[in-house]
């Protein structure tokens, strides 16, 4: 079977799973102990609004008709309407995507950039201090709840070291009491005084850099995203380090490594070109599944740092009992998860030549 066929099959499976996800969410609404109309109308809705919702959402129809309508809506990207926010859920979701993507990508980049070299070093220098440190780090990393980690980072960096940290897109922590003058204490000359802006998106930062040769927006972006990205990325860094280490150890024991060494290849090439490549194959499949953890972690991290992404919006929707928004975000996350997994599979297929023979 060719890679294309393999991917096509995965794609069709993905469609099936998306249908399943949508069905489960519909089912949840149907089995919810309350009245679905009041569920959709959200917190504090009046009886009139609930009735209006019942009629407009077709909740007075038989269940199977509701289901068909529900599916039809989903197919055209209609996630419903938030009666609380008076907006299309899809607009709400789209508005929140960039912040989450920025955070998730930053965390992943940080994780990969740190974890892979760390795992390789740890795996190739077994039982040396570097290995022990990396092992301890990864054990702590996978065992530390990330919301707590986020708070501790704030505590250490913002409070104890007195590094002022922008409140925006961050928690919580007042840094006042910090008497050091702002820019010098950060040690980053390019970092401006905090702006009055809530946040700078990566896009804005990049365009400022490109069109205005201005570093300050990028600096602001970096300053805002650093702690959240570390918070979200730590678990992943630890996990990938762990996987890389054990994968390296497994792979290094394989005969082909001796064979490659006998060819006289430099060791860095052996590690990164030959061994790591084979190590990555199982890691990638695991990571595909772990993207779900990343997304769950993003929900928490966004809450800790008040980061205006999907996760924070999901929590708000839950507190407001705004079912359509909650459902829209959950379905969106699930679909994103499925699509990422298909991409991961493609990556996997491109890495492992044997996949096309399976």
């Amino acid at each position: 079977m060719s890679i294309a066929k393999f991917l096509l099959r995965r794609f069709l499976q993905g469609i099936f799973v998306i249908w399943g996800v949508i069905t489960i969410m519909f089912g949840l609404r149907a089995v919810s102990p309350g009245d679905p109309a009041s569920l959709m109308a959200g917190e504090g809705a009046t009886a009139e609004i609930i009735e209006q919702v019942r009629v407009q959402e077709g909740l007075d129809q038989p269940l199977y008709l509701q289901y068909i309508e529900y599916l039809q809506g989903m197919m055209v990207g209609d996630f419903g309407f938030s009666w609380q926010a008076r907006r299309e859920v899809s607009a709400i979701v789209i508005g929140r995507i960039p912040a989450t993507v920025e955070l998730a990508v930053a965390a992943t980049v940080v994780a990969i950039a740190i974890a892979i070299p760390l795992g390789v070093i740890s795996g190739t220098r077994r039982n040396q201090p570097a290995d022990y440190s990396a092992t301890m780090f990864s054990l702590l990393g996978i065992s530390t709840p990330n919301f707590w980690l986020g708070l501790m980072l704030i505590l250490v960096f913002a409070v104890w070291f007195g590094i002022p940290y922008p409140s925006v897109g961050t928690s919580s922590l007042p840094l006042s009491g910090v008497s050091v003058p702002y820019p010098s204490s950060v040690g980053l000359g390019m970092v401006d005084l905090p702006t009055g802006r809530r946040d700078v998106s990566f896009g804005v930062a990049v365009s400022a850099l490109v069109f205005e040769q201005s570093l300050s927006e990028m600096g602001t972006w970096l300053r805002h995203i650093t702690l959240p990205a570390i918070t979200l990325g730590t678990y992943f860094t630890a996990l990938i380090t762990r996987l890389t280490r054990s994968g390296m150890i497994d792979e290094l024991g394989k005969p082909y490594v001796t064979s490659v060494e006998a060819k006289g290849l430099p060791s860095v090439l052996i590690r990164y070109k030959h061994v790591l490549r084979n190590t990555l194959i199982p890691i990638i499949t695991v990571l595909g599944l772990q993207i779900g953890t990343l997304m769950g972690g993003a929900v928490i991290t966004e809450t800790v740092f008040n980061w205006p992404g999907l996760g924070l919006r999901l929590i708000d929707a839950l507190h407001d009992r705004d079912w359509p928004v909650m459902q829209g975000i959950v379905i969106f996350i699930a679909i994103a998860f499925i699509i990422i997994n298909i991409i991961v599979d493609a990556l996997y297929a491109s890495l492992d030549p044997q996949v096309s023979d399976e």
Partner: protein
Amino acid sequence: MISDRVKSNLKDTFVDSLLPKVGLVLLIAILVMALFAPLLATHDPTRTGHFHETGAPYPPMGYSYETQVAQDGEFGEVSVESNSTHVLGTNNIGQDVYSRFLYGARVSVIVGLSSTLLAMLIGVPIGLVAGYYGGRVDDGLMRVADTMLAFPALVLALALIGVFGESPVHVPDPIVMAGFADGMPETIPIPGTVTIVGALVIWVWFARVARGEALSLRNEEYVKAAQSFGTGNAQILRQHILPNSLTPIIVLATIQVAVIILLEASLAYLGFSGTTLSWGYEIERGQDVLRTRPWVSIVPGIGIMLAVISVNLLGDWLRDALDPNIDQSKRGA
């Protein structure tokens, strides 16, 4: 079942390396804390009002801190000394942090174990049946499993809680009931929905592993032999397939306990657990006062970390010793 080889593997890997020992010591410590919380606690963990005379919470032993309090609208800086009866200080509402730390272990352990057990009870039979019978039953299960796995665990848990709400269950404390620990709460609230939701989120892992085992075991000679004697399928599943599938299921269960502990803590932190007697909730409580009273958040966080580390270490040990092939992906929350 557990063979001698496995036993000796378990022993060897335990004796040879430090980490499983650390894990076991931690686990025993956590279990002792959880089990004997009413005896070890110095105060009723729900009792409020343990404040310094200035009205501010006590810091942990050996520390003091400066804070500002308003009396009749006027601010004044006061120094707050620790109090020897509150080893780890008190929280925002004057509850003893040490005692809440112990009871937090209790909630984590109860939720972690019961949720995992429940998930096993749901997932293992489904997985075994699917794997053993194969065919359409199996296909159906795998599709359901794929769909369940398309939800990030925390997100699915939040969705379920969003629908079903939070309902704490008040579990009586046998030690207090028996009169060994006067002054401790007679019941403790366990986040009921979280327990069930946790099981609903992770059962599919058990189903997958059990299915895989059943799938390979059904071709074993002794199973074929039993079939040829006309032994009923139910009996074969019970007598042959289940016992021989246990090893990877036990390894998985260990890891999933850690997953549930983190899940419960996360939900409590986000305010969806329905109980305030939880490490996660306590961290949230401390968030507002992180700058002035960091111990309120630090202490429960260490609790979660130690509990998860202990379970992870034991999980690693079991996995290495029992089943080197079990998938790494089954960890994490």
